[in-house]
């Protein structure tokens, strides 16, 4: 049956499914919620979900972590390329979060509120 096939696919690849759910949660929150700090948190959730998808691509069941084992060098290691890329990606996400939070601190200093709708009203009445 079609439904049984879909449920079996979900049970085998549950990493990908969870990553996609987190991505959509982060994307939707970033667009619709009006609190600026929530937008920054949602940006982090979105980036983390893509990192989760990337790392789980390289996973092999029952293999060793990708560090050179001097005692017993043979055997199956998991794919080291996604892990190495994601370390760089995490640092990039940290930098963007730091910059966004300092911008929010400055906006609070100037406007007195961190609600995006109120800021748009203040800007509209100033023009």
């Amino acid at each position, binding site marked *: 049956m079609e439904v049984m096939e879909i449920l079996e696919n979900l049970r085998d690849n549950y990493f990908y499914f969870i990553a996609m759910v987190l*991505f959509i949660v*982060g*994307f939707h929150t*970033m*667009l619709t919620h009006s609190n*600026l700090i929530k*937008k920054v948190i949602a*940006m982090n959730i*979105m*980036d983390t979900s*893509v990192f989760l*998808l*990337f790392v789980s*691509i390289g996973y092999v069941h029952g293999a060793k972590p990708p560090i050179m084992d001097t005692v017993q060098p043979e055997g199956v290691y998991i794919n080291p*390329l*996604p892990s190495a*890329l994601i370390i*760089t*990606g995490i640092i*990039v996400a940290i*930098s*963007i979060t730091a*910059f*966004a939070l300092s*911008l*929010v601190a*400055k*906006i609070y200093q*100037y*406007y007195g509120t961190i609600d995006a709708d109120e*800021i748009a009203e203040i*800007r509209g009445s*100033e023009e």
Partner: protein
Amino acid sequence: MYALEHVLNHLPAILVISLFVFAFIMPLLFIWKRDWCVPVATLSMGLSLAMSLALVIQVNQVGTFVYHMGGWEPPYGIEFRVDYLSAYMLLVLHGIGLLILVYSIGDLKKELADRVIGWYYTLYLLLMGAMSGMALTNDLFNLFVFMEICAIAACAIISIKEDRECLEASFKYLILSAMGTGCYLLSVAMLYMITGYMHMEKVAVALETGAAEYPYNVLVAMSLMVVSFGVKSALFPLHVWLPDAHASAPSPSSAVLSGLVIKIYAVAMVHLIFRAFPRELFEMIPMLEIILWLSTLGIIFGSIFAMVQENFKKMLAYSSIAQIGYVFLGIGLFTPTALVGGLLHILNHAVMKSMLFMVAGIIIYSSGIKRLQHFDGIASRLTWTMVAFTIGGASMVGIPITGGFISKLYLAQGALEVERPFFLLVILVSSLLNAFYYFPISINAFLAEQKREDITFKPVLKSMLVPVLILLALIIFLGLNPQPVTNMLEQAAEMLFE
């Protein structure tokens, strides 16, 4: 000299790294020797301009060549690939970047607080380094890293002014840019899942068989890539961050953002379309049709929005949305002639729009006028500035003798080649709309009587006027004699299409 030969072999890496090294030396200089910041920044931009000229000469002699980072062959290592399009884009970036840096020396003392002027040059050099890296790289994840550095630096040079409006505009730009980056990373993950490679040509080879087995992954990857590059380079429905961001930034930042930053994402998209996806895929998935229609909407609506603006810099920002539509029109028509037109428009618009933003900065510096209705009769005091504005406006419309005419000619020829004369009509209508909002300003400035007597005009600094005049000469030179540039671009388009 042995050292010179050594440097010439490793030019792609040294170009990008020298900009980053100078960007990191700037904070040290700011603490210990504050007066050296500006000369060292100018020296760094001059060095990188010399290096990009050397790269152009090398590409003309040798053809396309590659550079492996760390000596590791792909797929284990990152590759920098220098072809005609990359060399052309580097020359545009560093030439106009140097002129904007010279302009900013005089302008920044008035617009920014004293303690942040040294940091402005750090961010500027980081931005230039990241854009050079984006033009050169041949690796999907390396493109992501350079895209992020470029996004942070671009948002920071807007918000360094610490005004009420530029903070909000910079935050909006940052959030939308982060959304675009998330989508790009997801599409890279999809491509990696099918092919297992990060190197663009190997991805194309593996996709020839992989696209038939996993059609949904490829569809998701291509659509997310259009969204991501569309957000970052202001394709039509995703352009909402651009007017506020470019209008409220300090004038040199507006010139860099409108002239260079939104173009480099279009060039990165050209690289991806032509290197990373096999050609048969575009007949099954109508990605280019969608880009074509969105760019048309952008051209028409950008001009319509620009006509109703009262603030001078906001009008120029909406005009940027219309002009970047021409570049995407050249990409979407997908023939060599149209692609040459689109890529030539990158150079023309970079020169024109940077000059127009510099003119706006000079007017604000000298008299404080920001609204178009106060422009009556200012040409009697700021003569050369308004002459530059008139020639720039004529080039935007596409009058012959100026550079803008040549790129629109190529685009029109490309539209006729694929037998879609509707886009020729779009180009003509949009030129007419451009004339509606550029010419009244010039007429107002030259011929009307000056109504307001209380404006005092400060004298314009030489260091602010000279870059404007150099760019003015360049527009006229490109209009009369575009042969050197179009030869290089025709070779680039031929090589991309084979």
